[in-house]
């Protein structure tokens, strides 16, 4: 009898485990790959370019904790800050002087003046580029890039980037740099693999 049941048990277990892994694949452990590459650009357009997926299906939950944009040494750090739409940015004043935070872009905001070790929060609910300025220190400038999805990266000094954990699929890649822009460039991501793309960026 045991000889007859064993193959049946095996078949049942195999089916269960197979469907189980299929379900877990759908539930969270999505098949992902990465997109990496370099921006093809003149030297002045290589660093601090945001390379990003133009549009990805789905709705993406913004991080629950604010992302910091530092005011330190009379400048904003980092100069270029990409965030997912809905993200709250916390502006931290680490200078022994009053700073202001304002932007004239996309309707604009002005978070007023605040002193050392004080912070001001702003939630970015609309995608777009926000030039980040300080009324009292016009030598300070930064950019908050608000994006539809979390698949983005900032290029290093040589123009290299890598975007991990991108769900398998086909995408249009775009690039933004404070003096230029680039794309679209097609990228097809396969599970467990890296896709290499070159994104031309120009004025």
């Amino acid at each position, binding site marked *: 009898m045991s000889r007859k049941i064993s193959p049946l048990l095996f078949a049942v277990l195999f089916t269960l485990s197979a469907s189980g892994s299929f379900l877990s694949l759908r539930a969270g452990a999505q098949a992902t790959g990465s997109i990496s590459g370099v921006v093809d650009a003149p030297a002045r357009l290589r660093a601090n370019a945001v390379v990003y997926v133009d549009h990805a299906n789905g709705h993406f939950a913004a991080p629950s904790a604010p992302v910091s944009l530092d005011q330190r040494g009379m400048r904003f750090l980092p100069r270029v800050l990409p965030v997912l739409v809905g993200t709250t940015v916390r502006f931290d004043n680490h*200078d022994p*002087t009053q700073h202001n935070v304002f932007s004239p872009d996309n309707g604009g905001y002005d978070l007023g003046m605040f002193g050392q070790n004080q912070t001001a929060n702003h939630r970015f609910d609309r995608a777009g580029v926000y030039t980040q300025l300080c009324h009292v220190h*016009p030598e300070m400038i930064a950019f908050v890039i608000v994006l539809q999805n979390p698949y983005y990266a900032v290029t290093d*000094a040589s123009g290299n980037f890598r975007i991990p954990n991108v769900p398998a699929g086909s995408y249009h890649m775009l690039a933004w740099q*404070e*003096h230029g822009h680039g794309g679209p460039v097609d990228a097809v991501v396969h599970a467990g693999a890296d896709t290499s793309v070159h994104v031309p960026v120009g004025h």
Partner: protein
Amino acid sequence: MGSGAKRVIAAVLAGLVLATAGGSVWWTLHRASAATPPPPPPEPHFATKVERGAYLFEHVGCIACHGVHGAGGVVNANYIRGTNPALDLQAGRMMLDEKAKGDAVVAMIEHGEDPHAATAHPPFDRYDVFLAQWDATRAVIQNGNPAAKLDPNGPQPVSMPSWRGTVNDADMDCLLAYLITQEPWDADGYAPDETEAPEQEAAEHAAGSEPVEPHEQAQQTPPPAEPQ
């Protein structure tokens, strides 16, 4: 007439002469000192607003703290940045990152036009940001700015004074037009890039003096959120 009467008349006349001379000396001195600051020497004639701006930059005193042609490099003891801000890069910070944009603004000033009047038909992109920086720069000239200390226990560095009452609106136009022309455009007409490499920024941030509450450095790509 007695000699006594003659002496009296002579004394009165002498007194009148002295009083008149003294009065005119007093009048001359008074006129010279009444206007503070002293009346400007005859204004040179300038063919352009940019030329007047260059003159003001030297004669009002901007040059002392911001360097020849606004090129910066002037040490300010215990100022948080070490040296005062260079102003020849201000055009780039005002979104005038191409010479053609700088030329467009300078042309407006030379024609006596207020850049705010062009809002309906902006001559280049990100014009609202340009105007915001244009206004902010003028506000700093008007209001001055306290210089932040590097060492909180160190001496107070030299602060930007208020030039209200010294530099009027028209002269601020001239100064800003002049500074725009000082931007060191490259051969292709682009302003130099002021961005630092992200890795350099991160290193400088990490080297910050006092410990601060930990937070994610923004150059890292955050772990992607799950599609819902």
